[in-house]
């Protein structure tokens, strides 16, 4: 589903950052999760070997994907499941609707699935008169608010408890002004139990599917997926084709990595292994491509299919933490989303690979070792080559490129800047044309350029003297210069 609107990440992010307290709070909430992840990673001395092993398994999966898919489909069928294939979102939705309608299912409970988000399954089913209730608490909250999730693991991380209290008061009849998480979660428990008990069918996503056995694993902390598919007789599992693993034993690697990376837990509360339907029930598995083979075909971005949707790269990303998940306007936001979304439509999502400081933190935490920041850089080149950048950015880049090609011009401009910057009135420095000056002070200009310092040093060394660089009038804090690698 493509829309014509171009995603303007900087603009959306600016709106989010405008509420400075909130942006700070959002940043801190995610950083807290990142710290928990670090503790868990440090609890296993073999962490790096685990990541490497996971990465190798995933590379093997992509290299043999067709075989594994066939094997999985055969084994799953042997266990009594019905396997369906969907090329795109439309086919996926039609298949799901058809199964539901042909069995007269009207009320559906769904557990968290980014794939069904990607396919916009909920609005589609609702248009056909089917009630779909998201049962993960965070997903239910954003569903009540009529919003998409802003994070793939923490769907309502952008919500404050007061706002959730307000939503629940309106929709679930909780006390006005109530904001105690325990009280609110209890109200949701009661409300959702009713939905679980009244459901005709349950829909789940899939965390891992196993070619060798034809089974699949769903991980939750709340137990919502399990309740949703253990009461009704009909279970539909929606599965992106990249979620395959060759052997059941590979799960040992991935279950060790997933929750530790996602929320800093040693494992999720429930890691359920489904092999075949409930006794007397029906299990349908929908295998969905929706652009994944296109990504597999591209050697630059192939490894983004390794993603196990743990969210660690979002929690660590300085841009994501300060701009909020909704600013990406993509099903998967954050660093990995900024690779996946342009693969779908590079013109529409051209700003996303630029929402990156190239700090590399995402690649450092990624449990399957995706070189996320490298791929983001590659996307930038690709988008520039396709001339999909905004004119202002394109002009800026061309100008900078031209300056860099003329060393005399660069050094002259630098000299001029060092002279004039300290005397410039603020309004000339901090305005709309200087995005670097938004929400931060520009560093003070050093009295000498590196080139000048270097020339001076060469000269003094030639004369046998030592060099003392002149301190800048506003020299940066000492930790800063201590960690600097420039001699």
């Amino acid at each position, binding site marked *: 589903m493509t829309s014509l609107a171009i995603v303007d990440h900087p603009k959306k992010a600016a709106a989010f950052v405008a509420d400075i307290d909130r942006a700070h709070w959002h940043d801190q909430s995610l950083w807290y999760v990142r710290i928990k992840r670090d503790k868990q990673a440090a609890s296993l001395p073999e962490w790096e070997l685990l990541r490497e092993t996971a990465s190798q398994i995933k590379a093997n999966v992509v290299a043999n994907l067709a075989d594994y898919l066939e094997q999985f489909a055969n084994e799953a069928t042997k266990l009594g499941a019905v396997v369906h294939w969907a090329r795109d979102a439309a086919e996926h939705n039609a298949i799901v609707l058809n199964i539901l309608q042909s069995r007269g299912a009207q009320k559906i409970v769904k557990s968290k699935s980014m794939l069904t988000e990607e396919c916009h399954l909920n609005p589609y089913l609702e248009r056909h008169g089917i009630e779909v209730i998201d049962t993960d608490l965070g997903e239910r*909250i954003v569903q009540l608010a009529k919003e998409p999730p802003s994070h793939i693991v923490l769907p309502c991380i952008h919500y404050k*408890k007061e706002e959730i209290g307000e939503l629940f008061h309106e929709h679930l009849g909780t006390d006005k002004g109530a904001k105690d*998480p325990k009280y609110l979660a209890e109200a949701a428990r009661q409300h959702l139990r009713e939905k679980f008990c009244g459901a005709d069918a349950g829909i789940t996503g899939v965390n891992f599917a196993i070619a060798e056995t034809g089974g699949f694993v769903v991980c939750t902390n709340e137990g919502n997926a399990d309740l949703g598919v253990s009461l009704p007789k009909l279970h539909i599992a929606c599965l992106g084709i990249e979620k395959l693993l060759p052997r059941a034993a590979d799960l*040992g690697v991935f279950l060790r990595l997933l929750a530790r990376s996602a929320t800093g837990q040693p494992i999720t509360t429930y890691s359920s292994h489904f092999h075949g339907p409930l006794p007397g029930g029906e299990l349908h598995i929908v295998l969905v491509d929706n652009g994944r083979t296109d990504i597999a075909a591209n050697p630059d971005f192939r490894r983004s299919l390794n993603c196990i949707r743990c969210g660690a790269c979002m929690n660590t990303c300085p841009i994501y933490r300060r701009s909020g998940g909704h600013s990406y306007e993509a099903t998967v936001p954050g660093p990995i989303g900024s690779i996946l979304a342009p693969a779908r439509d590079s013109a529409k999502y051209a700003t996303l690979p630029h929402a990156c400081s190239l700090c590399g933190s995402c690649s450092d935490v990624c449990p399957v070792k995706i070189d996320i920041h490298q791929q983001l850089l590659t996307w930038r080149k690709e988008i520039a080559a396709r001339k999909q950048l905004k004119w202002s950015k394109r002009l800026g880049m061309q100008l900078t490129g031209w300056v860099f090609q003329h060393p005399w011009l660069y050094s002259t401009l630098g000299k001029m800047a060092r002279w004039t910057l300290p005397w410039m009135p603020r309004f000339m420095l901090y305005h709309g044309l200087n995005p670097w000056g938004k929400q931060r002070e520009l560093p003070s200009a050093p009295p000498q350029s590196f080139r000048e310092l270097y020339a001076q040093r060469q000269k003094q060394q030639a004369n046998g003297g030592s060099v003392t660089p002149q301190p800048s009038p506003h020299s940066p804090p000492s930790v800063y210069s201590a960690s600097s690698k420039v001699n």
Partner: protein
Amino acid sequence: MGLPDTNSAKNAILGAIRAINIPPAPLPPLQRSEWITYPDPAAQFAIVLASIGGTCETVADTAELNEKLRHLPAFTTARQIVNLVPHVNLPAEHLLKEQEIADPHHLVDVDLAIMPGEFAVAENGAVWCVTRHLRHRVLYFITQHLALVVPREQIVHNMHQAYERLAWGQAEFGLFLAGPSKTADIEQSLVIGAHGARSLTVFLV
């Protein structure tokens, strides 16, 4: 809109993938000396389980297990209890016979379920549970409180050892269950008892 032809979709997807030339990548070995082990796996299991909101009780024999079960707060206040562990002897008044219940929805008022666990994992506090012995797998999730009884010698160090123990090939449901149901979706505050069990006690016998 009619149902898309799933066979042509299958052929299209597999055909598109097969048309891509991807360099081979061998599978890594999964048995490695580097995987973590603990000097006292039972102690490690108890520590990790406590850290994720569960409780671990080590008991000497069935008599002590029965005694401890009778003193569980979840037991003393329960109106409906299901017990699926042989040798456990509890006063019959609140016991519900799961096998006699035809519709799983009727388990919605179970307060405490006492179930066997196959083995426990030291590194993450998980217990492997299967549904062979019960009629309705929903019991694991619908009960208000859950007690798992695991043989004391059945503890593995890590998840790799766990998967080495598991066999596949038939239609069956199994799960690693680690602690009570929980959520942190409201401002990252941990709330125990989201949809599933509000407490989990693991008895190592």
